[in-house]
């Protein structure tokens, strides 16, 4: 039975939730507003919140200076490519660890996660040399590979926790009915874990979309994704806050929209298995 909650309490919690929500969202809102100001208005003090002469000139300027679509396509290929490749590797590995664990499974999981604990700059030079020697510098395939590798531990961990929630007996039953291993994974396990896989997919697309260390360091002109697009508007000598904001808004808009439409899946996946 649901608890009785007084109206007053409801109001207070709603107010707190909204305040926290707005606080978290405020930097993005401010970036969005600044992108419609002139450079002079962007640094005005006190700053204008809504009452200024709205202009779209920054967007035109940004588009005329850099090829947004090229960077956008690179971001799409790199983030979707790395996530899908990651899932292809991670689903069988997570299956193995969840349903056929050995004495060392926990250690392997921990070891995989430990690769995330190292600062990436520590392996920049070796990685750069490998990329140079294999001709992968400034290629989309190179970036797909490196982002797959860095996000793989997270994908495996997430899938592992989802798979653990699925009763092994169902898989056993499938096996009894004569399903092969591949069929068991494709037709039984995967459909049951769809919410988990969907949220892993979404979260990793977001992570790969925003990844700014490797994508900046291993790309130059051809494979540069939107992170490089934003970085090109940051200036050590000169105030281009409005243009930088326009570039940032353009860079985050696609992923924000994707997140907005798929938030149901995201939340469902993240809380999947929370209630038993």
């Amino acid at each position, binding site marked *: 039975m649901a608890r009785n909650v007084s109206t007053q309490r409801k109001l207070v919690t709603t107010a707190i939730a909204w305040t926290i929500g707005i606080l978290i969202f405020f930097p993005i809102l401010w970036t969005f507003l600044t992108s419609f100001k002139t450079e*002079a208005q962007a*640094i005005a*003090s006190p700053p204008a919140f809504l009452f200024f002469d709205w202009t779209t000139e920054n967007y035109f300027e940004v588009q005329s*200076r850099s090829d947004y679509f090229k960077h956008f396509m690179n971001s799409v290929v790199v983030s979707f490519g790395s996530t899908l490749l990651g899932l292809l590797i991670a689903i069988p590995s997570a299956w193995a660890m969840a349903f056929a664990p050995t004495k060392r499974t926990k250690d392997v999981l921990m070891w995989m996660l430990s690769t995330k604990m190292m600062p990436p700059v520590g392996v920049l030079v070796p990685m750069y040399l490998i990329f140079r020697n294999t001709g992968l*510098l400034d290629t989309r395939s190179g970036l797909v590979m490196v982002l797959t590798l860095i996000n793989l531990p997270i994908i495996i961990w997430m899938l592992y926790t989802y798979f653990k929630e699925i009763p092994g007996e169902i898989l056993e039953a499938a096996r009894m009915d004569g399903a092969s291993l591949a069929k068991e994974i494709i037709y039984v396990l995967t459909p049951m874990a769809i919410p988990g896989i969907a949220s892993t997919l979404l979260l990793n697309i977001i992570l790969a979309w925003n990844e700014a260390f490797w994508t*900046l360091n291993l790309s*130059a002109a051809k494979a540069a994704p939107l992170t490089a697009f934003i970085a*090109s508007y940051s*200036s050590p000598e000169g105030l281009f806050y409005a243009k930088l904001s326009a570039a940032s808004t353009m860079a985050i808009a696609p992923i924000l929209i994707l997140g907005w439409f798929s938030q149901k899946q995201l939340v469902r996946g993240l809380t999947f298995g929370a209630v038993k």
Partner: protein
Amino acid sequence: MNLRTFLLGTCSAVALAGLAQAETLTIATVNNGDMIRMQKLTDDFTSKNPDIQLEWVTLEENVLRQRVTTDIATKGGQYDIMTIGTYEVPIWAKQGWLLPLDKLGPDYDVDDLLPAIRSGLTVDDKLYAAPFYGESSMVMYRKDLFEKAGLTMPDAPNWEFIADAARKITDKNNEIYGICLRGKAGWGENMAFLTATANAFGARWFDENWKPQFDQPEWKNALDFYVKLMNDAGPPGASSNGFNENLSLFQTGKCGMWIDATVAASFVTNPKESTVADKVGFALAPDTGLGKRGNWLWAWSLGIPAGSQKADAAQKFIAWATSKDYLKLVAEKEGWANVPPGTRKSLYENPEYQKAAPFAKATLESINSADPKNPAVKPVPYVGVQFVAIPEFQGLGTAVGQVFSAALAGQMSVDQALASAQQLTTREMTKAGYIK
């Protein structure tokens, strides 16, 4: 078809294929106004050189530096032209990472380059990078506030006058601060300003035997003076202000004086961006009577990494972008005030430029008086006014910058900051083998 026709046909096909396969130069650059303008004007270059295409990689300064350093150190060969500063050029040239620019063409007139800038980019009598724009530092001040306070700025002020004027102008109730100076930690941020200023106070980073000098009275005087002045007459939160933050403060009328890069002059006098455009005056960076002014020297320059396979085409582009004709081209399209400053003598002799740029005289004098080979009052073993041209300086400068920034923020005393700077510099220099 006889043999002759066949051979002729083959030859022309090969020639056509060669033509069609235009060389693409990848250029790494920073997002500064002059560089962006160059990107817009490159049609002039590509129409004269149809066999060369250009691809730009624009990055934030620190990202660019890391990116370019990794590429050049590993001979990655991603870039054919790199935008680098006077700090990198001597170090990289000595490492053999840059190609000497010896094919800039007969019309280039290398003797027209400003001697101070040219010398900063020359190693063993060879030019390793061509300056795209050069800068020094100078005082920018509000003539209206000076007049109101009954003060007159001399052409070549000293620090005592600057400090006195800053305190008189400050009106914290109306958010007017006498002086805005860099405080944000970083070797290219607060340490560029403080190293150059310390030179005027008789201080130096190292003695002739590479022993750090932060335990000497000159550094104490300089840092003490800076911290006290900023506490009395600087804006709140100055320890997080760099070039851009001070630029925005000055443009919105909150600073009486600002001592920083000469390139800022064109921003603060631009009525589209600045609310004080018609009220700005210029003077040389201050001294303390010891014979050195705290004005630095920097040139964003174009160099070719040793790994580039397209050195000839790259030299052609560099010759175009740093030529006298390029300056004329910018003047035609965007006006004389927007011409990249600080590289060529002929620009400063041009009456049209002098008319359009009220800051021309102060800029030229500042650049000419900076001496990277003898930056301090006492002798030093290094080159560089606002930096020490050794590979270790990026890390050292930033670490020392952090403790000095903490002193400005009041998190530690000036003595503690200097002791800490001395200790960490001694440790690093010993580790690097400078101190035996």
